[in-house]
């Protein structure tokens, strides 16, 4: 089951959900409307799952930055969010989608125990100008079923990320990391 906006507010007040910074006006009927951070990593080369991804990091100027199709951008949410109790799903909103922007590449789930600024995987269908701090998507919170398990106890890769993380899949592939 998905938390309503008032239920998210109550969970923030009770300390069961952390959203920082938290602005009550960004609560929508069943989500929190998160914002795009100020930095992008541009990945425009050939990639290999067994090797770290080369990238160039740029700030998004106040006047905006034009995203180009066929380039992979890694961005970051302005907010850090976390919950030991609820799982999270991050998606774009319909306004972003109507601009032809994907905010993740088929990986929306945040496991219970995440406490992160989310790395975004941004792709544009057409050239489109984006701005730092713009409202970019919705974050929903899901009740869980069964005994809890926290991401923090799993020894997983991105437990407390505070910026943009490139993929660390190469750590899992034999001979990777070259």
């Amino acid at each position: 089951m998905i938390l309503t906006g008032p239920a998210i507010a109550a969970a923030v007040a009770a300390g069961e959900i952390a959203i920082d910074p938290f602005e009550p006006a960004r609560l929508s009927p069943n989500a929190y409307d998160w914002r795009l951070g100020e930095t992008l990593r541009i990945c425009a080369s050939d990639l290999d799952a067994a090797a770290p991804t080369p990238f160039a990091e740029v700030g998004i100027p106040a006047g905006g930055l034009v995203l180009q199709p066929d380039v992979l951008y890694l961005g970051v949410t302005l907010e850090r969010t976390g919950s030991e109790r609820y799982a999270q799903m991050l998606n774009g909103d319909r306004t972003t989608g109507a601009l032809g922007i994907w905010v993740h590449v088929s990986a929306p789930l945040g496991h219970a125990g995440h406490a992160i600024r989310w790395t975004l995987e941004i792709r544009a269908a057409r050239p489109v100008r984006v701005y730092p701090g713009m409202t970019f998507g919705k974050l929903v919170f899901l009740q869980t079923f069964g005994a809890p398990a926290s991401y923090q106890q799993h020894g997983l890769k991105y437990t407390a990320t505070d910026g943009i993380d490139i993929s660390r899949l190469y750590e899992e592939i034999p001979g990777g990391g070259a």
Partner: protein
Amino acid sequence: MILTGPEITTAVRDGRLRIAPFESGQVNPNSYNVRLGPTLLTYTEPVIDAHRPNPTTTTDIGPEGYVLQPGELYLGHTLEEVGSDTFVPLLFGRSSVGRLGLFVEITAPIGDIGFHGQWTLMLNPVRPLRVYPGMKIGQIMFFVSVGPVDLYAGKYQAALGPQPSGYWRDQAGTGAVA
């Protein structure tokens, strides 16, 4: 409600879920990591026709990996057979794979209660990307359902290997295509 990792493990043990092969090391706080199978299908005609069977060619991913090209659609598959007569499965990419710019499904994350088999992956990279057989590529999560269950009995039941679109079969039933 979304199942926790411990509940996924319990449900595999008591039969409410089937994941084969099952490795406890692939359980996350709210999902299970599935691996990329060795077979890829690509459509060979320049235009895919929704109303007709589309010829395909098969590629085996060797241990040295295989480079996926942007602009091409690859149908892959999970190594695991996954299904449940109780819970609703959703398949997404892993964030580590999203950060490599690889779409693992195309607007179709939701599975059916009662489907059992290998899941077809719809692979489309933003940048050229080398992938490897057996790499952990996606995550399947499970949701508690509400209401009486009418089990899946559709055209992809018991799938092994990647399945091309069977839309034409539904059309054939209406007499639109011989």
